[in-house]
């Protein structure tokens, strides 16, 4: 009987895959970098929403993530130029596709950089202007604060991958490649 009860406990509570839900917290930011021959354009959004299910207790051999979409409204991006921010809405067709969305599909811990800070590989899909593209990037997972998870990564793509014609300023075109820094803080739900 005792063995049966123990079996029930082991079956119901497999700690290895008991993922907790973490919600995006204040301090998170998504930053895009677009390059024009005459200047760099940097736009930041600090209004990020989303959740992931993550098993911080089994971080050392964890290879997974279950995530809801991480989203930022295009109107929340600020590049210190109101005219430019308005133009960005036009280029990404924000009326039809009001958010930039990232859906994580897998994360793989690769090594420990320092205590509670891990190098990882992050895979997911990025949705911009109604186009979905696979993104695989190096990420850093910081569990220095056990109640606050931090995931940082940089993604690189081309504007034309998402059907965005590189905009021009005074008839000089911006460069096609752009980068996106994602710096997310999560707290347990």
């Amino acid at each position, binding site marked *: *009987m005792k063995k*049966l*009860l123990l*079996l*029930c406990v082991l*079956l*119901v*509570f*497999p700690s*290895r*895959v008991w993922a907790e839900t973490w919600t995006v917290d204040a301090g998170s930011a998504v930053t895009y970098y677009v390059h024009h021959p*005459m*200047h760099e354009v940097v736009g930041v959004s600090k209004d990020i929403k989303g959740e992931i*299910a993550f098993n911080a207790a089994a971080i050392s051999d964890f*290879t*997974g*993530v*279950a*995530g*809801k*979409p991480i989203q930022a409204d295009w109107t929340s991006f600020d590049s*210190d*130029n*109101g*005219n*430019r*921010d*308005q*133009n960005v809405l*036009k280029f990404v*067709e924000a*009326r*039809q*596709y*009001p958010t930039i*969305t990232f*859906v*994580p*599909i*897998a994360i*793989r811990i690769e090594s420990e950089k320092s205590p509670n800070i891990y190098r990882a*590989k992050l*895979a997911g*899909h990025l*949705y911009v202007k*109604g*186009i*979905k*593209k*696979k993104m*695989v990037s190096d990420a850093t997972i910081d569990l220095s604060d056990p109640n606050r998870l931090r995931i940082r990564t940089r993604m690189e793509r081309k504007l034309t991958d998402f059907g965005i014609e590189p905009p021009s*300023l*005074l*008839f*000089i075109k911006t460069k096609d490649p752009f980068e996106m820094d994602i710096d997310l803080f999560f707290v347990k739900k």
Partner: protein
Amino acid sequence: MKPIAIFVAAVLGLPSFLFADARDMSGNFSLVQDAPILVAEVDPFSMDEDESTVAADDPFLQPVQVEVTDEMRRYDRRYRMLKYHQGFAIAALGLWAGQLITGQILYSQDNFKATWADSNRTRMAHQIFAYTSYSAYSTAMLLAITAPKFDKKQAGRDAVSTHRALAWVHGSTMMLLPWVGLVSARLNSSTNPPSPTVSKAIKTGHLAAGYAGWGALAGAMLTILID
């Protein structure tokens, strides 16, 4: 008791087994909640696009149906007008440069007796540049003034406010330059021309204003370019 215990364990434990080890062939766990499910054969870390999800089932690929509002139309009109404003402003800058070059040549001929250019042709070219640059500039100015405005204000000084501030400099010089040039030409060709000193002062002022205005216009363009 035993069958009941086994039954309870199976019911409670079954979900754990369902989600416990959904690994793909690469040994990576990839379960996505509330998002399109991936086919296990696709390595999530490869850059191969996953074609298993149907676009119609993917909520993030569906456009939002929006009604075009007056503000959207205003913004579209503003965007188009400012694009034309850029084009006419660049044309005005180039034509104004031609005006300056020919004006400098004329000034050198009149005041330093330079003889390396035909005075009549240079004068005609200067007038043509003056009329065309004035037309291009006026068009650019009207487009900027009449383009719909937006209420989003930037705190402090930014490129756009600097751009607008410089407009007062190149705008005022561009409006005055043709009149000063015409007055100067009329006075010098009249039966009672002014003294050489006065004539030279008017021409010097005309040339200096031309350079100052052109510099302000070029600066206004740079503020937008390098912001």
